[in-house]
């Protein structure tokens, strides 16, 4: 369906986080017929862009190279190789969505808006998917760390009071309920206190 729209389009993805870049790249592979280039290195970025001569540059919003890239585009426009940011004002909502997702796009001036939309919409979807993956991962990591803290607190209680593991856990739980806090908060307090007392 998209084949005729974007055939022959050259898309550069600039992202220092290689994992995210490949998630975007994989998503854009759906757009058959376009060529995709992934640039993960800050060094030599402009030379690579010059060489690739892309129709669209997708770059993560917070990329430290953005000012450098914008400067390059401003200068190259003077050299009659016009590239402008995807800022057709009629498409303000679309840009807003891409900014929210954390991706900015620069496109060759005069490229048809619908062709750009297809690419940017896909990139936004992939960026959002990546962000969700990251959030899941962070949550999983957080849970793991919490369990470790509780385990350490249990061990401290078992050693110092000579009680069993279920008893240690029951004690943490009782204290948590009394003070309406989470078990992990109580566990953290136990671990901190233990460290302060010089173990």
């Amino acid at each position, binding site marked *: 369906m998209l084949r005729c729209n974007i055939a022959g389009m050259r898309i550069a993805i600039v992202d220092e986080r290689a994992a995210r870049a490949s998630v975007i790249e994989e998503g854009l592979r759906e757009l058959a017929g376009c060529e995709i280039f992934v640039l993960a290195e800050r060094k030599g970025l402009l030379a690579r862009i010059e060489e690739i001569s892309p129709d669209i540059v997708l770059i993560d919003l917070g990329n430290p*190279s953005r000012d450098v890239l914008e400067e390059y585009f401003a200068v190259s426009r003077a050299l009659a190789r016009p590239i402008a940011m995807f800022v057709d004002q009629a498409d303000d909502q679309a840009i807003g969505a891409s900014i929210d997702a954390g991706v900015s796009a620069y496109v060759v001036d005069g490229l048809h808006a619908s062709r750009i939309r297809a690419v940017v919409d896909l990139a936004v979807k992939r960026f959002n998917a990546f962000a969700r993956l990251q959030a899941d991962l962070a949550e999983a990591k957080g849970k793991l760390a919490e369990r470790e803290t509780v385990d350490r607190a249990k061990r401290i209680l078992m050693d110092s009071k000579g009680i069993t593991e279920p008893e240690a856990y029951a004690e943490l739980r009782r204290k948590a309920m009394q003070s309406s806090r989470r078990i992990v908060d109580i566990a953290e307090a136990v671990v901190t206190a233990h460290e302060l007392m010089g173990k």
Partner: protein
Amino acid sequence: MSEKLTIGFLPLVDACLPILAQEHGFAEEEGLSLDFVRDVSWATVLDRLLYGHSDAAHMLAPLAIATTLGRNRPPQPLSAPFVLGLNGNAVTLSNALAAKVAPTDSLGDPRLVGAALAQEVRELAARGEKLRFGVVHRYSSHSYMLRYWLAACGIRPDRDIEIVTVPPPFVADALASGEVHGACVGEPWNSVCVERGVGAIVLATAQIWRRGVEKVLALREPLLEDRRPTIEALIRAMRKAGRHFVEPENWQDNAAILARAEYLDGDAGLIMRSISDRLVLRRGGEPVHYSDFMFQYREAANFPWVSQAEWLYSQMLRWDGLAYSAQDAQAAARVFRPDVYRSALMGTGDVLPGASSKVEGSLRGLTSVTAQQGAMVLSQNSFFDGGIFDPDDIPGYLAKLL
């Protein structure tokens, strides 16, 4: 209930006022609660501002004007009701170049360093080589100050030397790798270059223009109108932060706050150098005192003089090779909002200038000026070459420069 404002910034010492307003409770006193979003490129700070991720931002003054005029993207009107500080930037050269053109233990004389640099540029040209300098952004006061200095010393930027964009955190790397031979950047990044032993500070931008306008607090114009009382409260909180900032007994504390991971994520000792006007110019050197390296608070330093915006607009024309337009000049001037600054501070006892515009570079010494509130004395504000900018005659000024 306090009003929330989200403020975008880049990790630079001159982002200090909103940060300290929050940290010392001045924001809270004014019924505000400030959140901060840190980025590493100005394009990102600007995107977040335009698309509502932030309500206000620490912003390069020329970028606020360029955005309003629609350079490189469709125009979006921004307003700057508060100048976050004057100067505070420096020119750092690679050790080899500094040894050639500024072989002193103190800051150089801008004319002498410029003349020596011009000589070096000519010698390199004879061998078909060119120096490359980094600035933080095309639309920055760093770019305009550096270009002003070079041009006045007979070095034509873009023809005799190349000027490229290097984000502040990467200036030291760029000097180390030889990607650039010099740079004009804000603190603490010059001091980082010195500490890494990759460059030497040779000039402060305050030597180029004694009272050069630097970052502003920028907002979307419609947001300023919608939330005017909140923004005025923020202005009052930042003035209180400024008064705190200039007191020597607070310097250590403030450097420590700014150094924190969520703000500049840097070394408090390095940040202290610009706060105290004491810079180490070469690695291992003694600190050199240069007064008003970064100028804050005093002499209504945060007042957005319309003539400052107009000077920046004149430099935009000069270096973008554009013709003067009365309409653009007016739009650029309108970015700076002394009216908002005034209404925020009216009745607080803070000093308020009587005029909104002045002839830049005209004061040779302490001068009393009319004030609307308080007593107003301005000190020397000259350009190093004696140039005088009359905002009523931008074309005449440019004709003399080019």
